């Protein structure tokens, strides 16, 4: 168990209420929050093994199913090692432990990306605002950082508190990364436990990142009516200079809009964003424009609309500078994470830098000073626009047809495509000036350009698709609601009971990247379906953008049609990737506000509460990154099931329950201490679905929780049955396993279910006050009294 840090400081100067002293040594036993009367739980600042028991419980119930993408290990110079056929590597690992180690590595890398991002924000904001700057999620939110409270036992009240919490996170990450080293951990279950730990720490880090930017940068503060902002290519005003910001870290982008504002240049500029920076820049300035998710980088840059490309960190195409150069758009790298080999001009004169960029003397520069970035970018954009003369690297249809004649019909393009798209076939059609097939490829294209680099003819195939579909994307524009931030305590108070009792059938979070198997429509359709069924829909990141790209017959996006309130049928965009902890936080706050459980340093009890009571399901349809792995891992440790789209299978490990093994589905009844049988719900903790249809049925099913009241269970079952019948074509044969008492039966389906119950020799079961923790027996109040 990690102890809370003792602080002992030698100071040159000590300012206290009692006056000012020099050369004082201060020794402080613990960092203590004086005004907070919530008692400290058992596990503040948990170390790597503190929650190991809890993890092992989950990992026994939901056993990993590994699908190695490679049967070799190449991590050290004993190797490569061949791990086929039960063989072990030179360090003693077998393929199962190695597979678990890969999961841990991914979660560590993902966690690091967020923590480093958070640290940069905190350092920067302390520099701007000082360490005592007060943190807030806005009015109506007393529990400003539920995850941090839960994990660390600290309330982050100031930027300085935020910094201390990050200290804890970085230490933990160092420990979990250490375990990836050759010759450390040997057991798959302990690798997995550490991956959960990294995921939990990641949630803390993200929460801090969003909290500090919300507190300081003028973002909506828990605002269900956060502004609708413009998105899509057609929303760009091409009479203005366009600045494209790619990445996650809003600081440089904000410096740009701030500089433009201060110098009254807004009317000359469009600031647009891709990936999470898009969300965060619109949270900072609702006039900024959203281009789209990660997959739209190439098409937008190649279109030539962007006059300057600014990259901060994360989710940047690492070859973006080369593509930008082809359209004479200077690139400004702004973060230590992505220097892109560009010359460091941080300490140079602004006008010199601008001159070099505008004359295309250098294709790009690295500038580590954000204020300088603002000035350089704005000046460059305005000066370079006329010189670029609308330069694009998209070929004309005519040119495509001409080039296409030489296609070797080698299929290399298709074989390189992650979505196995019929690119060659589309090229052959283009030989005949039929651009329909290329346009179809565009619709399911994630913009990775692997087809291009595989083509022996060096065709710019992605550009060809973009040209083929030009009519569509040129006219695309839609309104999306920018990130609101946290869920208000009052909202939680209103929905806590119906969620826990199951009457609001579930909270469904669509998060993550744009690695879609067949375009983005599926996310939209799933959101709409479940919103209609009165689930609460929560969104973030690229998923939240994609869902807004589909319009109804009246031309309205789902954000225009639906409320942003955290309530049945609401469609709630919390924001960027680092806003994800607002989703976990909502579940945690249900335990706290509705069920009055103590949060502080009380991880296991709250996770147990959420796992057994809160019908939350996370979905990351296009999950791509190690960050997404780590985010999922944070949900797993809280006992929240996560579904990923088909490409998510490439995370190479599922966490699968076995509905057919009754003994796996036992809980303690906190009221009696008895072990009681429950229905197999949630059935899995991590699952890659084959298609949208499977996702719909599974989502409804995973929302079922042992604590559902009869009414809640009946509602959840009727959704499950309905979707099952729709997509699988028959009445599900496991309904009886979910019936505890007569009253659980959806009234309209009584006959069918009765028949099934009889056939399966159904017996009545108690509805427990469910917990996996023996120590909660008698102590638990289950939120149901």
């Amino acid at each position: 168990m990690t102890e809370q840090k003792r602080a002992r400081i030698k100071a040159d100067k000590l300012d206290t209420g009692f006056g000012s002293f020099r050369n004082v040594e201060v020794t402080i036993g613990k960092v203590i929050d004086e005004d907070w009367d919530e008692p400290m739980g058992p596990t503040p600042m948990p170390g790597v093994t503190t929650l190991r028991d809890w993890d092992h419980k989950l990992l026994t119930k939901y056993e990993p199913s590994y699908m190695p993408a490679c049967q070799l290990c190449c991590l050290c110079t004993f190797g490569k090692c061949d791990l086929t056929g039960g063989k072990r590597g030179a360090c003693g690992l077998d393929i199962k432990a190695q597979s678990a180690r890969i999961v841990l590595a991914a979660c560590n890398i993902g966690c690091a990306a967020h923590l480093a991002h958070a640290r940069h924000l905190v350092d920067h904001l302390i520099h701007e605002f000082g360490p005592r700057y007060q943190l807030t999620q806005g009015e109506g939110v007393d529990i400003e950082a539920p995850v941090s409270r839960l994990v660390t036992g600290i309330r982050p009240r100031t930027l300085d508190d935020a910094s201390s919490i990050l200290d804890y996170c970085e230490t933990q990450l160092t420990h979990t990364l250490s375990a990836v080293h050759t010759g450390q951990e040997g057991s798959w279950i302990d690798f997995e436990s550490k991956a959960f730990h990294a995921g939990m720490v990641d949630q803390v880090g993200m929460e801090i990142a969003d909290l500090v930017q919300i507190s300081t940068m003028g973002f909506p503060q828990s605002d269900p009516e956060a502004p609708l902002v413009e998105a899509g290519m057609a929303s760009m005003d091409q009479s203005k200079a366009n600045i494209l910001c790619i990445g996650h870290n809003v600081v440089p982008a904000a410096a740009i809009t701030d500089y433009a504002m201060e110098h009254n240049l807004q009317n000359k500029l469009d600031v647009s964003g891709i990936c999470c920076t898009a969300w965060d820049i619109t949270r900072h300035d609702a006039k900024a424009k959203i281009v789209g998710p990660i997959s739209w980088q190439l098409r937008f840059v190649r279109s030539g609309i962007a006059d300057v490309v600014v990259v901060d960190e994360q989710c940047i195409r690492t070859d973006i500078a080369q593509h930008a150069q082809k359209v004479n758009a200077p690139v400004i790298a702004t973060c230590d994470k992505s220097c892109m080999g560009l010359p460091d001009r941080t300490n140079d004169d602004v006008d010199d830098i601008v001159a070099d960029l505008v004359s295309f003397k250098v294709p790009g520069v690295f500038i580590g000073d954000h204020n300088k970035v603002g000035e350089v970018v704005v000046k460059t954009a305005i000066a370079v626009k006329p010189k670029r003369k609308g330069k694009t690297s998209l070929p004309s249809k005519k040119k495509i047809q001409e080039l296409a004649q030489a296609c070797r019909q080698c299929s290399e393009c298709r074989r390189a495509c992650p979505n196995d798209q019929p690119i060659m076939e589309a090229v052959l059609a283009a030989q005949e000036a039929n651009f329909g097939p290329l346009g179809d490829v565009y619709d399911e294209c994630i913009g990775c350009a692997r087809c291009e680099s595989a083509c022996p003819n060096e065709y710019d195939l992605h550009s060809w698709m973009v040209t083929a579909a030009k009519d569509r994307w040129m006219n695309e524009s839609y309104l999306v609601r920018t990130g609101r931030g946290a869920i208000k305590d009052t909202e939680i108070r209103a929905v806590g009971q119906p969620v826990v009792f199951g009457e609001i059938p579930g909270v469904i979070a669509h998060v993550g990247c744009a690695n879609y198997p067949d375009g983005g429509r599926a996310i939209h359709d799933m959101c709409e379906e479940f919103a209609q069924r009165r689930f609460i829909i929560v969104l973030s990141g690229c998923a939240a953008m994609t869902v807004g790209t589909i319009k109804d017959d009246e031309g309205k996006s789902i954000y225009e049609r639906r409320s942003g309130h955290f309530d049945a049928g609401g469609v709630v965009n919390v924001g960027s990737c680092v806003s994800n902890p607002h989703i976990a936080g909502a579940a945690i706050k249900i335990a706290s506000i509705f069920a009055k459980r103590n949060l502080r340093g009380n991880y296991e009890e709250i996770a147990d509460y959420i796992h057994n009571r809160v019908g939350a399901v996370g979905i990351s349809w296009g999950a791509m990154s190690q960050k997404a792995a780590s985010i999922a891992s944070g949900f797993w440790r809280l006992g929240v099931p996560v579904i990923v789209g088909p490409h998510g299978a490439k995370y190479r490990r599922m966490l699968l329950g076995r509905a057919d093994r009754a003994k796996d589905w036992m809980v303690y009844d906190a009221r009696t201490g008895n072990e009681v049988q429950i229905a197999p719900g949630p059935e899995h903790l991590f699952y890659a679905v084959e298609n949208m249809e499977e996702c719909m049925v599974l989502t409804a099913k995973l929302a079922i929780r042992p604590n559902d009241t009869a009414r809640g269970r009946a509602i959840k079952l009727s959704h499950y049955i309905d979707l099952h019948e729709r997509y699988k074509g028959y009445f599900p044969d496991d309904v009886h396993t979910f019936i505890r008492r007569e009253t659980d039966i959806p009234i309209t389906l009584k006959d069918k279910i009765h028949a099934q119950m009889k056939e399966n020799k159904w017996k009545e079961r108690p509805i427990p006050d469910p917990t996996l923790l023996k120590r909660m027996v008698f102590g638990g109040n289950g939120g149901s009294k």
Partner: protein
Amino acid sequence: MMRAEPWQTAEVCGPTKAQELKKPVVVGALLKKAKHPLLIVGANALTEKTRKKSMIDYFIELSTAAKIPVVATSNTIKAFKEKNFDNVYSHGVMEIAGKLQDPDWMVAPKKGPHDLVMTFGYPYYMEWLMLSALINFAPQIKTITLGRYFQPHATWSFPNLKKQKWNDALKEILSILGGTK
């Protein structure tokens, strides 16, 4: 050119790869030897055809002829049910890949553990990963892929085939097993 190499070129799994199914008769022989084979069919079967026949129909014939139970994943099962085919079970693709690692698990009780699995109808990468689970953690099971593209993680797989050759192969398999034409 279309050799027994991964269709998606990056999907190299390690030192070994599937044996190339050069002759459909091998499939017949394997199926006859197997004690409890299983056919796993994914949603691409809903849209793919062999000659003019839907793959669902093909698999119904195959299953009937060879008395092999079918696991139809996701909405695939709907198509089987609609054709009043009964020897079909619903599991998710990741579920079935997980359950088959448990040597005690079987789709229909009493017939003993599965020893041969045939797959069809998934995105290339997803099938690849499912097969990885089986080859690494279900050593008791041999796998055959019936799709057009070479799957290195299977025990046996067709090489990357032209459509016509693949049609012929499917047809021959069916006839070996005593199915209609």
